[in-house]
């Protein structure tokens, strides 16, 4: 529920072609289009960010303004890249969502202390892995052997960068943008690095007749 965030649905009926021509025009047509686009963005944003921040939060109003301004600038800058695969307003909302969520993720990670992150070094294991009801010594020894074997594979197959990326993204659940910033790369390159690492490990396990699901199932309570 977005109580307090009542922003009237903008009555904008431009076609994609009209949006583009008005935003490329000079004077009043452009000003009017920018004003309408501003309404479109500000109407949608409360819904976009409702999972992270409520409209009553003191942080919300400045965020709304900042994201709106940045979105308008980016839209004008990238007008030529709009391919018309969607409504122009949907394309604009997509840009606003990216800007807003990037800002919210940055703030979230700025606010969380490094010590807190260390305390939560490893994400909690799923209940299946935690609920280990006194397995016998043979089972424990088999599990230890399997973990040691997988550990050796990880150490042999992963580059230091891939290892760091997997820990940040897969274990720590650090957002992609934040992890990319820490690793001095970009989101796309980091996703590719992670993807390549996962495939490399998956293929190596497959070559040895193993798969991740079967190994993990050995740790579930019988």
């Amino acid at each position, binding site marked *: 529920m977005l109580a307090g965030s009542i922003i009237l649905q903008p009555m904008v009926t431009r076609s994609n072609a009209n949006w583009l021509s008005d935003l490329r025009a000079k004077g009043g047509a452009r000003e009017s289009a920018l004003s309408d686009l501003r309404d479109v963005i500000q109407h*949608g944003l409360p819904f976009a960010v409702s999972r992270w921040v409520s409209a009553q939060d003191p942080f919300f109003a400045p965020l709304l303004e900042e994201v709106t301004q940045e979105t308008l600038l980016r839209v004008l800058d990238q007008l030529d890249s709009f391919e018309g695969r969607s409504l122009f307003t*949907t394309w604009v909302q*997509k840009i606003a969502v990216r800007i807003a*969520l990037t800002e919210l993720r940055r703030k979230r990670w700025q606010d969380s202390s490094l010590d807190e992150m260390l305390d939560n070094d*490893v994400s909690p294991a799923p209940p299946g892995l935690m609920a280990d009801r006194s397995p016998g010594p043979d089972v424990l020894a088999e599990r230890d052997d399997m973990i040691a074997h997988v550990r050796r594979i*990880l150490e042999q197959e992963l580059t230091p960068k891939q290892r*760091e990326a997997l820990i940040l993204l*897969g274990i720590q659940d650090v957002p992609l943008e934040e992890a990319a910033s820490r690793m001095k790369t970009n989101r796309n390159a980091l996703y590719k690095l992670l993807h390549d690492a*996962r495939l490399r490990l998956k293929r190596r396990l497959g070559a040895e007749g193993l798969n991740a699901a079967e190994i993990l199932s050995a*740790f579930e309570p019988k």
Partner: protein
Amino acid sequence: MSEPFHKLLGRLRRDHEPLSDEVVKGFLRILERARIEDIPCSQVYNRLDEYVEKDVHGHAAAKLMPLLREHLDCCHDCSEEYEALMRVLRQASGEG
């Protein structure tokens, strides 16, 4: 006092300390979700508006753009952006 997170990571990289059992299991869980085919985040972003419109209007977006759907299943950040855009379009179409 614990050392800062980024220093710990740096040390892990330099010294190749053995990965803990929980980290090894964490990697295995990541591998469970790994898919052979994938597209980069930038390609997902380029088509996200089109995908979400199809989804909102019930046009079987996942079937029409399966690689994009698979990426959304694996990539937390892209998935968040998809859901946020879905909320915007759903309210605009009177469903939210």
